[in-house]
């Protein structure tokens, strides 16, 4: 957030009193700094419900408070504080948000109609904030945001008689908040067990610290280049993306000989790699960096030159990525936006991979569902009722879902057509004929015709002992179905695929697409595909990640 309102004002040093306009700027600064550090607060959440949204809740509460005052021309401090309290109350989200709004409420009440705030008033207001917050609960738990509010009120009471400078007092209050936050694990065992400080208290600290940073003219929108306490270092997403030049993750703990010159330290590290994070605790620094292979030992050599290295951990990220690739990629598909008046297609997809394929072909909405997980009519209608068009085509992609799709057509006021695809390959074949700007009836007809141009094979396992069409199947055996009909039971997946393809006369077709399921590894699928390619040399064999449950493979033969 870069804004003229956040320009430094340190030149008016020292500040003996502040008015409503100044409070407005301080609230914005507190909100901005809290938002910058929102994720840090979120990751601290262990109490009382481990849902990890304290930071978000506090940001939303402060945002509501700021929204209330952002256009106000009020100069009276007390009146502005009342507006803040009102906004915070209306927007209070979650436990921490409610407590925060109570703090603002008490703060505002102490000041009522005060035109400007002086240090003695601040001390009084913080005390009232504390009292109001404590009244809201029968059994106050110490080691939470309440304790931090209590400690800063005590500090303000102590310091306000000896200094008239607002900056001075705010600085002391922020320091007290920091100390109080660091002390929370000593008061609340659950925090100690989790090895974190209290999240709500930390959020309050960021709000106050943001105000101080603003007055000092420090940046509020970037949290890099700073040292965070060790307990707060979280190396999230180290597995998600590995960019070029991030071959290894190196973590070094060291004790510097002299105090660390951070800009120089960061500057040197930036020559070596990326994703730099530095943490500190009890004089030990922890450095986290991603480096390319040639620089593998550089961070260690460098830290050895400036201090004593106590511990080194190295992980091969490329290898981790490869392992991760084995698992099914559950990324949600990105569907194409639809223009008003165009034809939108809703596809029922039994797996994330299949959904992505449909999305790449231009469907506008995806509904999860398939064998043994039929979506309800409501789920289908909900998927398309908000699309900005009246022309909807549903691809059920399973014969058991055609009924629900038809029901969705009945209940919707939109012009809905169901193209009765009985399988994923049929649905995909139909998608190939979609012309979003075409004539609705014509496109539907074309898509229906396309259904029979593809053969569908499915490899799954038998859920019970049965004999159908002369094929004897034991429970748990691998079975192959061609266009819904049981054709054989086989000892393994690969043989099932081969007999399926020969039954389907795949040699007379051009393209064989294999969608491998959630319980098949990528490498496994690739080696099976290679063997199939060897048997069907004139056909193109493609492998796609399907992620569908139950079915080892869904096969399209076209």
């Amino acid at each position, binding site marked *: 957030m870069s804004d003229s309102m956040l320009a430094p004002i340190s030149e008016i040093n020292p500040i003996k009193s502040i008015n409503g306009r100044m409070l407005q700027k301080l609230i914005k600064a507190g909100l901005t700094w809290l938002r910058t550090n929102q994720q840090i607060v979120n990751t601290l959440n262990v109490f009382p419900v481990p849902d990890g949204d304290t930071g978000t809740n506090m940001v939303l509460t402060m945002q509501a408070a700021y929204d209330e005052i952002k256009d106000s021309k009020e100069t009276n401090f007390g009146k502005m504080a009342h507006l803040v309290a009102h906004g915070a109350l209306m927007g209070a989200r979650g436990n921490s948000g*409610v407590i925060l709004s109570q703090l603002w409420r008490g703060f505002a009440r102490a000041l009522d109609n005060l035109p400007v705030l002086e240090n003695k008033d601040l001390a009084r207001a913080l005390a009232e904030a504390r009292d*109001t917050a404590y009244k809201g*609960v029968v059994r106050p738990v110490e080691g939470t945001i309440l304790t931090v509010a209590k400690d800063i009120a005590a500090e303000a009471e102590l310091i306000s008689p000896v200094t008239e400078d607002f900056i001075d007092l705010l600085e002391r209050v922020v320091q007290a908040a920091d100390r109080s936050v660091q002390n929370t694990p000593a008061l609340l065992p659950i925090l100690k067990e989790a090895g974190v400080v209290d999240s709500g208290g930390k959020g309050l600290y960021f709000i106050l610290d943001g105000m101080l940073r603003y007055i000092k003219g420090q940046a509020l929108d970037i949290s890099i280049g700073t040292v965070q306490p060790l307990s707060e270092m979280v190396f999230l997403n180290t597995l998600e993306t590995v960019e070029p030049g991030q071959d290894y993750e190196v973590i070094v703990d060291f004790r510097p000989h002299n105090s660390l010159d951070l800009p120089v330290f960061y500057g040197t590290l930036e020559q070596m790699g990326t994703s730099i994070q530095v943490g500190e605790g009890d004089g030990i620094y922890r450095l986290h960096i991603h480096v390319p292979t040639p620089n593998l030992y550089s961070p260690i050599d460098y830290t050895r030159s400036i201090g004593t290295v106590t511990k080194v951990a190295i992980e091969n990220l490329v290898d981790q990525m490869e392992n991760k690739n084995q698992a099914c990629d559950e990324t949600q598909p990105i569907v194409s936006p639809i223009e008003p008046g165009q034809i939108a297609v809703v596809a029922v997809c039994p797996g994330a991979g299949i959904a992505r394929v449909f999305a790449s072909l231009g469907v506008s909405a995806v509904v999860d569902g398939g064998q043994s997980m039929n979506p309800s009519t409501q789920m289908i209608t909900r998927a398309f009722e908000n699309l900005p068009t009246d022309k909807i085509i549903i691809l059920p992609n399973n014969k058991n879902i055609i009924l629900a799709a038809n029901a969705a057509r009945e209940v919707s006021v939109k012009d809905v057509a169901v193209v009765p695809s009985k399988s994923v390959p049929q649905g995909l074949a139909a998608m190939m004929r979609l012309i979003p700007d075409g004539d609705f009836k014509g496109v539907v007809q074309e898509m229906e015709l396309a259904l029979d141009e593809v053969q569908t094979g499915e490899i799954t396992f038998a859920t019970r002992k049965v004999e159908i069409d002369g094929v004897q199947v034991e429970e748990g055996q691998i079975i192959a179905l061609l266009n819904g009909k049981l054709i054989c039971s086989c000892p393994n997946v690969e043989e099932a695929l081969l007999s399926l393809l020969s039954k389907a006369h795949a040699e007379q077709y051009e393209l064989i697409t294999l969608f491998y399921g959630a319980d098949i590894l990528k490498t496994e699928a690739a080696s099976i595909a290679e063997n199939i390619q060897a048997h069907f040399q004139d056909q193109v064999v493609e492998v796609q990640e399907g992620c569908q449950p139950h079915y080892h493979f869904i096969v399209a033969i076209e």
Partner: protein
Amino acid sequence: MSDENLQNENIPLGSIKVSPNAISNIAYHATLESYGVVGFTSKNLVNGLAQAIVKDPTYGVDVHYDGKDIDIDLYIIIEYGTRIKSVAHSVSNTVRYHVEKSLGIPINEVNIHVRGLRISNLD
């Protein structure tokens, strides 16, 4: 409060039974630690009198078990000046979390009945 026991688990050595009273107790304490709640009220006059006589530790908490689902009803008083919706929401979360954590039994519903506001300060 009914006396029937919730059968929790059957294990080869015997069974574990948890009474609704125990659940009420956990819910009661979790509620009192929730921010914004300043007290309980009774569900109705008859209950209120009975509970006042026997000093029930689970005053204002009602646990229903119909053989399948566990529902908890809380009759509470909230501090004036807090956002009632947010307070009720976090009470519900906290109680569910604590009961499920202690018992390992999923809770179907936690219903919050706000029966009054306590006014400590008027703004």
